[in-house]
């Protein structure tokens, strides 16, 4: 099976591992991530301005690409996924926005939100199935206590992202169980790491990230996993609590025996 894949800029630079293992693991599990031709930056953050169109056009282009291929549109980066999903929601529900975006892009067939946008975790859960991951796990991470860090972009706004209960999610914990490890549920798992505020207020981000890491550690975790490059950056950069942070795809690769040392 093939799906359209939107890697995003960070996965081509700082988060190469997130990208590499996403492709390898998916392939092992029977899904080829087919990179969209000529994709452009998602914009990094979804603009809340109702009349903001230009910054969302690259997403619409990616969505249209997947529609023409009749494929799911998959991304791993929480920020890219958030922008793609929210843009798609606008294309479905805001006719004024859809009309203007289509006018700009002048496709042969207008795009009206037909593509199904899913995050890599949803690909694992809903398309591949956690059972299949369990079957393919060769290195079950039995003794590992792992804290899933969702951050904010993966789950919210919950009505639009519609992946899981934003206040009590379980998709990453179920993933952790599937690869044989023990999930650690801790209160800060769906709180913000500080995000882009790191550019102007390092102290604030240090505080926010510190709360997350301390909370995970105090609840007994050995490791934090995340899907978001910015979350990983903030957690690693801004705090001295000693707990490693890895990408979900790295961990999956380890479990599937695909990790290169």
């Amino acid at each position, binding site marked *: 099976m093939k799906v359209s894949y939107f890697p995003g800029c960070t996965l081509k630079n700082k988060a190469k591992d997130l990208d590499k293992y996403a492709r390898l693991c998916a392939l092992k599990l029977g899904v080829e991530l087919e990179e969209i031709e000529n994709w452009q930056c998602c914009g990094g953050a979804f603009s809340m301005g109702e009349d903001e169109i230009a910054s969302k056009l690259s997403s619409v282009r990616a969505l249209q690409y997947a529609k023409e291929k009749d494929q799911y549109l998959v991304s791993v980066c929480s920020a890219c996924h958030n922008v793609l999903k929210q843009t798609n929601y606008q294309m479905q529900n805001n006719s004024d926005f859809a009309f203007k975006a289509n006018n700009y892009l002048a496709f042969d067939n207008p795009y009206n939100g037909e593509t199904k946008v899913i995050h890599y975790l949803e690909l694992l859960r809903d398309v591949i199935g956690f059972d299949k991951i369990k079957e393919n796990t060769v290195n079950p991470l039995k003794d590992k206590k792992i804290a899933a860090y969702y951050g904010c972009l993966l789950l919210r706004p*919950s*009505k639009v992202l519609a992946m899981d*209960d934003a*206040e*009590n999610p379980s998709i990453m914990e179920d993933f952790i169980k599937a690869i044989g490890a023990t999930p650690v549920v801790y*209160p*800060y798992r769906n*709180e913000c790491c500080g995000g882009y505020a790191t550019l102007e207020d390092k102290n604030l981000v240090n505080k926010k990230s510190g709360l997350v890491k301390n*909370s995970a550690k*105090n609840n007994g975790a050995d490791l934090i996993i995340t899907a978001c490059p910015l979350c990983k950056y903030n957690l690693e950069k801004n705090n001295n609590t000693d707990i490693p942070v890895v990408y979900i795809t790295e961990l999956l690769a380890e479990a599937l025996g695909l990790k290169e040392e």
Partner: protein
Amino acid sequence: MQRIGVFVCWCGSNIAATVDVKAVAEALKSEPGVVFSTDYQYMCSQAGQDLIKEAIKEHKLTGLVICSCSPRMHENTFRKVAADSGINPYMVEIANIREQCSWVHKDKAIGTEKAIILARAAVAKVHLNTPLTPGESEVTKRALVIGGGIAGIQTALDIADAGYKVDIVETKPTIGGKMAQLDKTFPTLDCAACILTPKMVEVAQNENVRIFSYSEVTEVGGFVGNFTVKIKKKARYVKEDVCTGCGLCTEKCPMKKVPNDFNLGMNNKGAIYIPFAQAVPKVATIDPNYCNMLKNGKCGLCAKVCTAGAIDYTQKDEIIEEKYGAIVAATGYNPISLDKFDEFAYNQSKDVITSLEFERLTNAAGPTNGVLLRPSDLKHPKTIVFVQCVGSRCSADASKGKEYCSKICCMYTAKHAMLTRDKYPDTDVYVFYIDVRTPGKNFDEFYRRAVEEYGVHYIKGMVGKVIPEGDKLIVQGSDLLDNKQLKIEADLVVLAAAIEPDKSARNLATMLTASMDTNDFFTEAHPKLRPVESPTAGIFLSGTCQGPKDIPETVSQAGAAASKVIGLLAKDKLKGNPCVAHSDELMCNGCSSCERVCPYKAITYVDKEFRMPDRTTKVRRVAFVNEAVCQGCGACTVACPSGAMDLKGFKSKQIMAEVDAICK
């Protein structure tokens, strides 16, 4: 040929502002059969009614068309005018040119044109109207109250006081409802049990009242004045008339691990139990899910210790059928489930509780004997945070919680906060609120006392997250007046969960054919003028099943519902609705389609002898409508494939004539 009079009402400026009423009256003059047409400022007024009566006399009218407001408003008024003047009331048609015309149009030309068309349709119908006479039915002089909380108890007491028989059906083993679980009541702070239990005893001892506890209504048939109701009396495995309520069995029961639902699961009880000391009826009940004797046939200890010999492990559910003249729904409320509000950590920490759980914690008969100890470690909480509007006043977009205000939370939270500070002055008490709403007699004074005399910290703003950390709860919230983010280290967090109608209400509404709103509250017949009646005749509403309300309001409404029931039961006979289904036996082919769709079970089939054209006779199976049961919904007329079924007063021919007149 009918002699029809047309009367166009201005309704002050309600109609006249967007409909040229004179033009309507003028245009209708030329309709066939119309011999008189006029307009008047207020047709429903005494002067307007006299005008109609005069015209009937002078022009020898046989049918009337009133162009006015909705028939729901004044159809009965004008039918009465007709009857007073010797015309059959069903010869009156209303053309609704207010709700369906003047109120929805802005352009006078369009409004006028539409009013004329609506009036023409009504004239076309009157031509085909025939006089109808309603039948009469007896009234069963007994009322049923469904729900035995304070609403049901008060309604039953008031009906019984007027000398009528009344039955209460309560699903729990005891009556008393939510009020029995409360500690104190606002704004007077008298103890809930002290004012409720005398009423419970009174209702139990009243010879006009029967209480079916641990029972459910399973089927409702019939119609106003003549309901037939099936009540399932669940097996409690204890003979109600033999048990003395001594409680010995509840002490000896070896099964001690049954969550005590009366204390909201905060402590345990035995498999055989009496919910609380003042329960009515005070008899034991066995929970079959936990009783070893019922599950495995081993134990039988309660039967051995019972000196009265009341235990009966072989008891079965029993169905009782009874007739009633009126039914009152008093099914009450429950706090909503907090599963969708995990930001408050209700499911993660034992020390995050609901306000109802707080009531039990402070109640002398509760799990801690009234000493305020937090559930996790039974320590006295030094800092308590109350969060209001948990699940109330949610935006429709939030896909969780309720849009409405639950109404009682502001007051009970003020009560909890005040009582905590009064009993434990060393405790810091915070209340997060969106707004404090205290309309009610002595309500605002009460809240001010909590703030001013008892030093409760009221913070305008909502809590975003509750984080269990060690033995503390970190409450993250915002203070909107101070524009600050707050973090409070609390020992106990109390959530004022929204209230919603009891889950049984939806099922009951279907049985009663009573309507509900989108929140599953029962709808009243008119929000202002008929607040305790359901739109379905003979069904009345009492208490929170109709909308959130506090105890004083519930008691007033319970009394109002009772007075409506008494008014109904005081009548010996009821006039029915003559607009009921009627089957043309010659056209009926006996297919049973109508019988299947009839929601009131008003249609049966009978074998009837018919004379054939060749003078032989033949027995055919044909539909028969019980006119006393039929509610005139018209479902059968649509289902009938042969066109035999018709609704009196709304025959297909009449409706088609209206459509033709509109399309002309």
